[in-house]
């Protein structure tokens, strides 16, 4: 499994131009463990609009945005939309403690070795990537300031109808 991820990453790294911003590229596939012990792959969600949010418990704006992401997830999840929260911390302890206090209903995945963070060339904390039903990256947002959730919803709305 890990070799597959590495091989995919290597192929995409060679094929990928510096797409820091506008997308238009096939979203790199990955497989990670989720908080409830399941194995989750991006390919499972082909046909859905997928929002990938990279976060950490030590990151203030990440914690601030997560309840809002939860309400976005609840609003659109029955319309072929899925939100994946990718936690980038090497040790899951702090993330789990925070999730106990502030639970969310969307899947949380662990990326302890930063493989997916590197794949997606994460340049800020948090980073939000929205992928359309064909698996193309259509929206990348770095950081979080109150009000950014409106940008996320605009993007989701335009991709949901496709």
């Amino acid at each position, binding site marked *: 499994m890990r070799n597959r991820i590495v091989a995919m990453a290597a192929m995409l790294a060679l094929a990928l131009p510096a797409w820091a*911003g506008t997308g238009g590229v096939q979203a790199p596939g990955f497989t990670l463990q989720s908080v409830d012990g399941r194995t989750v792959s991006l390919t499972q969600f082909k046909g859905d609009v997928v929002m990938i949010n990279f976060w950490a418990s030590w990151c203030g704006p990440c914690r601030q945005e997560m309840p809002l992401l939860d309400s976005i997830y609840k609003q659109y999840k029955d319309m072929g939309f899925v939100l994946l929260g990718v936690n980038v911390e090497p040790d899951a302890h702090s993330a789990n403690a925070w999730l106990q206090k502030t639970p969310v209903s969307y899947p949380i995945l662990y990326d302890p070795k930063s493989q997916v963070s590197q794949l997606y060339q994460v*340049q*800020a904390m948090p980073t939000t990537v929205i992928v359309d039903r064909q698996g193309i990256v259509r929206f990348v947002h770095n*950081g979080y300031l109150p009000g950014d959730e409106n940008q996320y919803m605009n993007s989701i709305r335009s991709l949901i109808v496709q």
Partner: protein
Amino acid sequence: MAALCLAAVPALAGVLPEDRVDALYHRYQGGGITVQGPSILVQKRIGDHFAVNANYYQDMISSASIDVLLSASPYKETRTQKSVGAQYLHGKTTYSAGFINSVEPDYKANTAYYSVSQDMFGDLTTVTLSYSRGWDQIYRDIKSNGVLSNDPTFHQRADHRVYGLSISQILTRNLVGTLNYQFSSDQGYLASPYREIRYIDPNNPVGYTLAPQIYPGTRTMDAFSGSLKYYLPYRAALTGQYRFFTDSWGIVAHTLKLDYVQPLRHHWTLDGSIRYYRQGAASFYSDLFPYANYSNYMARDRELAAFHSITFGLEASYAFSIPRLTWIQKSTATLSFDRMMITYLDYRDALYSKFDPGAIKAGAEPIYSLDANVYQAYVSLWF
């Protein structure tokens, strides 16, 4: 290059300081001086781009120091300092400005400051440029009928300008380094209306005569410092800092500081520090001049003498929660103690000859040394 940059990532923001209130009680005791008082600091964000801060500070001074006992009499006075400031965050740039006003019976000082801070290079580097300008009004207190009031014949001014450049750099996942440079320029009355120099006078029973000090009207200073802060894997932080100072009065000073902070389980955090300071005397300083009007500039202020000092510090902080008040995110209570030990190299305790004329020859009095205790107790609330 320019075309590529246009299709780039939108500007990333820096971070404004957190909302917090600190209420501090401070107490300094040493060398016959006790200074105590409060310091209240409030920091608050307004919206996403602004933050304001305000500080109220007081020094309640009770002084029977060696300088006071030599040529004056013990006194009590209060200095009050108020400051306000604001910060504006735009993209990766933070602009700060503020104003400080300090008032005591014989000294009024106003300072305005401005700084620009820029995060760059993937937020690994922060460069800050700062400028501050101070205007001081200096008076002299005289006692008439047991009441202290300003001497109407004495009113002086002093101006200060400070330029600063700071660079902080994240070096590894566990290491931050900083480099600082500060250039200061003082102009005007830079002396003390109360302190005096002494010169050898065989005609005087004590062996010396006191005379007014004469200071230069200008002073330019350069300070360079660097620091490293390292995160230890078991969750602690070690900081090392060195500063080199030199000025146009001939003073050269070195400061070395080590700090270790260790969070413990169950809400406690401990902080220990050692600070070593070494200073060479100003060119116009002397504990005892050979005769009257020895040189154009003469001073006997121990702040300009050659000395070294070592300060040990220990701080304990306890994080507690206030269940009733849910809008308070975090609260801590901190107690801090510093022991400062100064050993002068060329400043003598002239009180020996003052209180026992003829017993000790002027210039043969014991070298003065000073031990001081500094206490701080404060509560911090984050909301």
